[in-house]
């Protein structure tokens, strides 16, 4: 049981015990720097340890901080340098929870790894797929798309069928320390006090840039090109204009941000690379979700050599490069990739 020190994984452990499983709690030490606590800081490890004691299960802490730096933090920083929108939670799931940790658990002879994600596993035609959690508002299936069917054979989501309120109720009933602990929001290794700008500013050069309109006229400036995202509307000193304007393009090489009206952002298709398919590629109608809690939109999926082309049923705003897009059919995750 991957215990993060949060209420979801705490109750998940209790659910497994109730079901008669032999459970061992594992907490990953991932980040050694400042953290607001919410995932894997020292105080979270303490919370996890205390929950393990309260549930009377063995508890171990694994130091995966080097892998975390390599697979999550460094790429996050690098993505900003390249003006791509990273999703560190996806990378943490892809590389840490369901790769490094899963392999460690195989080594140690465990039958499965369980996490407190709000998600379920659905079986279709003898294969396993990640499915949405029962609580739509808390559904975390989006960040779990990197899991393949074969990995899912060894993964469990014990609270996926519960609503958040039920989870907290159970935690309170069990007298768990984490019952009222707030959910971790935002990126776990960036603190509210210092923020993304300070974090990145300590690691890469943040370059000021020019903001231009679609005709190339300079309309303003920005203090840090690296912090600008496609589709962004606020936070840029863009003078004039009667209509709302959005970031339509960013050229890191020339440190230029182009802004335009919403129409300029609209696209009919999105290309995805680095596809992970749960089981085999699949052309056809899908529902594609472009953010953790966004509404999925209907699209036709066409598999190409190096990825997928998604043709949206209805034109929509451009997906920021680097953003993950997850393909669903009947609330099951077929796979996902990264918008290029």
């Amino acid at each position, binding site marked *: 049981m991957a215990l993060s020190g949060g209420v979801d994984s705490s109750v998940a452990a209790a659910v497994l015990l109730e079901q008669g499983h032999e459970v061992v709690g594992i907490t990953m*030490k991932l980040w050694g720097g400042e953290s607001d606590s919410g995932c894997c800081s*020292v105080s979270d*490890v*303490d919370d996890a340890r205390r929950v393990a004691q309260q549930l009377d299960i*063995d508890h171990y802490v694994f*130091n995966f901080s080097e892998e975390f730096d390599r697979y999550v933090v460094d790429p996050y920083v690098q993505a900003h340098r390249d003006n791509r929108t990273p999703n560190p939670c996806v990378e943490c799931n892809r590389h840490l929870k369901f790769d490094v940790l899963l392999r460690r658990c195989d080594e*140690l*002879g465990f039958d499965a790894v369980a996490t407190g994600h709000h998600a379920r596993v659905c079986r279709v035609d003898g294969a396993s797929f990640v499915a949405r959690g029962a609580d739509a508002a808390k559904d975390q299936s989006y960040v779990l798309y990197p899991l393949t069917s074969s990995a899912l054979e060894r993964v469990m989501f014990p609270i996926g069928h519960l609503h958040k309120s039920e989870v907290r109720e159970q935690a309170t009933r069990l007298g768990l320390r984490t019952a009222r602990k707030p959910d971790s929001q935002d990126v776990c290794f960036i603190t509210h006090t210092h923020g993304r700008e300070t974090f990145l500013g300590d690691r890469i050069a943040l370059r000021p840039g020019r903001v231009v309109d679609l005709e190339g006229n300079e309309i303003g400036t920005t203090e840090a090109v690296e912090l600008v995202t496609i589709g962004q509307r606020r936070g840029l000193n863009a003078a004039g204009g009667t209509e709302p304007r959005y970031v339509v393009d960013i050229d890191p090489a020339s440190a230029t941000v182009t802004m335009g009206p919403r129409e300029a952002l609209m696209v009919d298709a999105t290309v995805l690379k680095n596809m992970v398919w749960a089981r085999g590629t699949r052309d056809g109608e899908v529902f594609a979700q472009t953010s953790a809690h966004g509404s999925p939109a209907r699209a036709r999926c066409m598999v190409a050599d190096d990825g997928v082309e998604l043709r949206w049923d209805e034109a929509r705003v451009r997906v920021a490069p680097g953003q993950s897009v997850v393909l669903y059919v009947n609330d099951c995750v077929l796979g996902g990739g990264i918008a290029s």
Partner: protein
Amino acid sequence: MIQRELYFDHAASCPMRPEALEALHHWSTEVGNPSGSHRAARRARRAIDDARDQLSELCGFEPRGVIFTSGGTEADNLALHGLGKASRGTVVVSAVEHPAVIEPARQLGATLVDVDATGTVNLEAVRSTISHDCRMVSVMAVNNEIGSVQPIATVADLCREFDEDIVVHSDFVQGFSWLDPRTVGARVDAISLSAHKFGGPKGVGALLVSSRCAVRPQLLGGGQEAQRRSGTPNVAGIAAMAVAAQKASNERESEVIRVSRLRDRLIQRLLAACPSAALTRPGPQAAVSPHIVHVNFAGLSSEALLVLCDREGLCASAAASCASGAKANSHVLMAIGVDQSVLNGSLRLSLGYTTTESEIDQAVEVLAACVEKLVAV
């Protein structure tokens, strides 16, 4: 899962001796606060002063040089911050000291002296590092991770020869069960002790200081321990510590022989059973304390290995862990210059007065089985 427990982490803590437990229990029922003047207080006072005399005799320091603390860490902090001429700046410590010395030393802007590949402090380096500005030099008696025995008497002589005013302190926490402090008592100015490393209770220790050393108190309050360490003394703990110290001292000579043999048996059998195992510290085992065996397993993660061992009841350690309880990179191993794969695969087994031959053999069996399991994956 097997219910037995094979305890091989004596360097972290060792079982309380029955005599110490008895003293702990007895003195826990004593109500008196040693600082008072009535009969109940005098009883409690007597208990700690008897303990004081006992430790003084066992270690070769004057009774008034014994300062009871909450453990080895507090003793080390008191030494680093409280000893030596305040007017002098620098503090010099070895690169392989326990964090209880390294951390206060760091705060004081100390200079770290290198060690060689066996983890032994480099005497030349000490000689060239000390200056007339130097307030104190601190070198541990036995390293807690790899067991290297340090030449503290020589370091003390060296410092004394250079400048009389340099105070020499030695963290004797891992040393007490295996080395006679009386052999260094006359030469070093101060030693730190921790009761639970020699069969006493956790949470109590002592700093023993030579009479020529003034001590600047770090804990201020009621002025206990002759104004050098305020706070109501842990009467029961102190009494138990003294009893444990006496017992450990009495058995030391025979235990060194017995445990050295067990250690050699462990090493021999382990290396034979596990081709991937190697002793981390090069050099003859004679310069290593009898109770510590530090090995590393090529290509394996000792973090994973320790979990497998734990599930079979074998308690060992990776010797360095951080605040979250996760394994950390050992500064000691880095100081002796091992590479990352050794850091990842390193494991410490430590023996004590309760270790038996049967436990040694079982431990090897368990370790070998766990290593095989990991290698097979």
